[in-house]
């Protein structure tokens, strides 16, 4: 039985800029920022979630991804078609305002949906997120 989801990879085009985006704009905290040679293990998470994290993984050609695959993924990021998941807010309208004031680019403003209130935004690499306030 799998009991928990702990790590998710998010490909980012620039780890320094992504770190700044996720911490300064979204308010996440850095869990790991470790460099070994050219490899950098960078993870972040919402401060109120102790047991899960996002790996901000550098989109670079390397042993696991050749230059062609890397370029293809970059194209998808640039097009803004890669969705990475849902982030839950305690108050979607309020969080939307806060993030907008910090310069986060929203693709859609908060809307009433059957499951809650949802807005969509993109990170600095182009990954898009749903920002959702779930209905009980």
């Amino acid at each position: 039985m799998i009991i928990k989801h702990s790590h998710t990879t998010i490909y980012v085009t620039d780890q320094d800029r992504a770190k700044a985006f996720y911490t300064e704009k979204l308010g996440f905290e850095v869990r790991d920022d470790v460099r070994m040679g050219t490899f950098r293990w960078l993870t972040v998470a919402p401060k109120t979630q102790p047991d899960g994290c996002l790996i901000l993984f550098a989109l670079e050609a390397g042993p696991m991804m050749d230059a062609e695959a890397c370029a293809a993924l970059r194209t998808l990021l640039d097009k803004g078609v890669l969705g990475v998941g849902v982030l839950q807010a305690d108050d979607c309208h309020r969080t939307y305002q806060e993030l907008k004031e910090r310069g986060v680019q929203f693709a859609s403003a908060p809307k009433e949906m059957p499951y809650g209130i949802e807005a969509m935004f993109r990170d600095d690499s182009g990954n898009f997120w749903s920002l959702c306030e779930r209905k009980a």
Partner: protein
Amino acid sequence: MARSLSPAVLARLVRARDRLHDAPAAAPTVAALAADVRLSRAHFLRSFALVFGVTPHAYLTSLRLDLAKRALARGASVTEACFDVGFSSLGSFSSLFAREVGVAPRDWQRRVRTVLPSAELWPAIWIPACFLIQHAPSTFGEALLGPRGVGQAS
């Protein structure tokens, strides 16, 4: 759940939790933390557990254990790891460590340093091996897939 708390209370709880991270070795008492974020002790304890899943004390203990592991991985002695992160009794630290981690601190350290024999590799301890092997095989393949000899992996 957490979202039944107001954003203001949530922000205060995060601030209190940040204070534990700021100085885990000299952490404020629960009473001081509660006062600092202007919540009653009972309200603070209840809502902290609601948001973070554990009591402030349990949160601090697991934070200290994590820091102790990092110190041990770097090569600190068990005594150094124990007192540097804020535990005040070597005996309680060792038995707590064994209970939570499953092995005694010294054994845990020995195990880690066998897998990651050079100091350059010690930060890798919290990186899932699948990432290391796939993305930095020249550095980690040997260390994680079976070193041909201690000290060769770097």
